[in-house]
């Protein structure tokens, strides 16, 4: 994957002006980096392949499976960002906190809602009222 990233970088760099070493263009530096990255990833693969156990003292390289809780957690943040402008800061924060607390095991709804409400209120006072940061108001207009 890292090798592919290096290759893609090099390809896009070649579409820019490379210039000469005397007068380097915009593409020269990223092209060098792309080639260097391909070389490093190649060296890493060779090391893992040929050094056997010695090279594999680190844990073997494998793409890890994402646990359900992490996916739910990430999904909630994605949903919150998607609705951030439309619902506004206070409502999005409140709903996101309720969902995240629930995912992490806060089973009692009353505590969950109360805590989310209090934290949202505190952050609203801190960021919007005190620091005067223009956060999205959304349709509730707060």
């Amino acid at each position, binding site marked *: 994957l890292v090798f592919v990233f290096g290759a893609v970088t090099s390809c896009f760099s070649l579409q820019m002006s490379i210039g000469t*070493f005397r007068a380097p263009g915009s593409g020269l530096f990223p092209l060098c980096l792309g080639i260097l990255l391909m070389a490093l990833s190649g060296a890493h693969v060779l090391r893992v392949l040929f050094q056997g156990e010695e090279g594999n003292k680190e844990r073997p390289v494998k793409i890890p499976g994402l646990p359900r809780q992490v996916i739910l957690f990430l999904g909630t943040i994605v949903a919150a960002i998607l609705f951030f402008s439309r619902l506004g800061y206070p409502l999005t924060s409140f709903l996101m906190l309720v969902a995240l607390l629930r995912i992490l095991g806060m089973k009692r709804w009353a505590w969950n809602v109360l805590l989310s409400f209090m934290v949202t209120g505190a952050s609203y006072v801190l960021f919007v009222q005190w620091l005067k940061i223009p956060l999205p108001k959304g349709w509730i207009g707060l």
Partner: protein
Amino acid sequence: MVESLQHLFQGFGIAMTIHNIFYCLIGAIVGTLIGVLPGIGPIAGIALLIPATFSLNPTSAIIMLAGIYYGAMYGGSTTSILLNVPGETASVMTCIDGYQMAQKGRAGPALAICAIGSFIAGTIGIFGLVFLAPPLAEAALAFGPAEYFSLMVLGFVVLSNVTGTSLIKSLMMAVIGLIIGTIGLDPVTGVARFTFDSISLLSGIEFVAVAIGLFGIGEVLANVEKPLEVLEERVIVPRLRDLYPSLQDLRKAIKAILRGTGIGFGVGLVPGPAPVIATYSSYMIEKKVSKHPEEFGKGAIEGVAGPESANNSACQAAFIPLFVLGIPFAPPTAILLGALLIHGVIPGPMLIEEHPQLFWGVIASMYLGNFILLLLNLPFVPLFANILRIPKKILLPLVILFCVTGMYTVNNSIFDIWVMLFFGGLGFLIRKLDFEGAPLLLALVLGPKLEVAFRQSLMMSHGDFGIFVSRPISMIFLLSTLAFLMIPVIRTAWRSMRKGGGT
């Protein structure tokens, strides 16, 4: 020397205004909290609070952010001692004997020695900074683009060598960071690169988004995966009256504190994650010089005093390359560099002349900050320890809320939040694959400087790469880089030779 002292006194005049004392206090408190709480480190902490400094003048802003940095280092020792969980990587060595002391009911003296050692180290470190920074800044005026390029390359290689499990993996992360750093307008010609016609990408990838993503969101996701109730069950909260160390403790610790200070300051001046190397070196040296090395690992107070002093001293010394060269050697100072640039201050050899108020004000504030931290850490340790009782299931969503809100406030941009989330996912994955995020972040911040230095050097030499080795200072940096690259190869060859000889 006298001139430096005069400037320092003027700096105290700036730092001691009510306004700056307030921001120093806020920085120290928030930093301690960040250090104490698992799930958010100084890098994400400083990055998160940069937006809060937009309305401040540059001096007050950097005073507050620097306070967060060394406050987090103080706070990190609390979790190491009470939980055996290092709040920061620099606190790993403190865990060994600190936690053992806590197990024997001596958490109080361990925490107090940390605070006292850090205060002494911080104080001595500041005087080192005062006397070393101005002459170094003068020397740095002789640096041209070739020297800067070679120094930055050395910084990447040293950082990659000592972080993570593999040099190649860390170097890959650094190169990825450099590539990400090329997104946006070319710093020399102004041509758009890798923007794919997106206006949001024209100004490049926001480094705050990368920092919060990799070190804030990534850490939270890694915590979400772990069993949630592990931490809360093991907190040992010492009582106030049990905090004070005995005279014997102090006698044992003082030499370790002084040695740790010296080691930390020296290590802080060279490229690499200074606090980590400094704490490790200090622990090893203390063990070597001790008359009772067998006590190490079982609760030796020198094993806490030395590394904690080295940690604090290295943090102070790390400000020297940041201020006088404009080159941060570690991620927290890289974030501070970003903050300085946001506030329109360009660090480098001319900083002391162009912004004397900022330079001397921040240095004086560090002394003040250390004093505040000493006052905070001794009587309020039980309070900070109690914060550790906040369940992670409550803490982690709060961190996410602060990350999202903090990120939006930087540019009022939803796009930046997406970037942050992307790097959060990446941070989580690279942790699982044993990669290291620090080289990527440092490379991202230094990338544009490195490219400009590279291209300027080639233009100056009319395309001759010999410029990097024909200039003596540059050659020394490149030879050091080569030496650091060869260390793992020689180590592996030595191991296989010994293995071959043994069979």
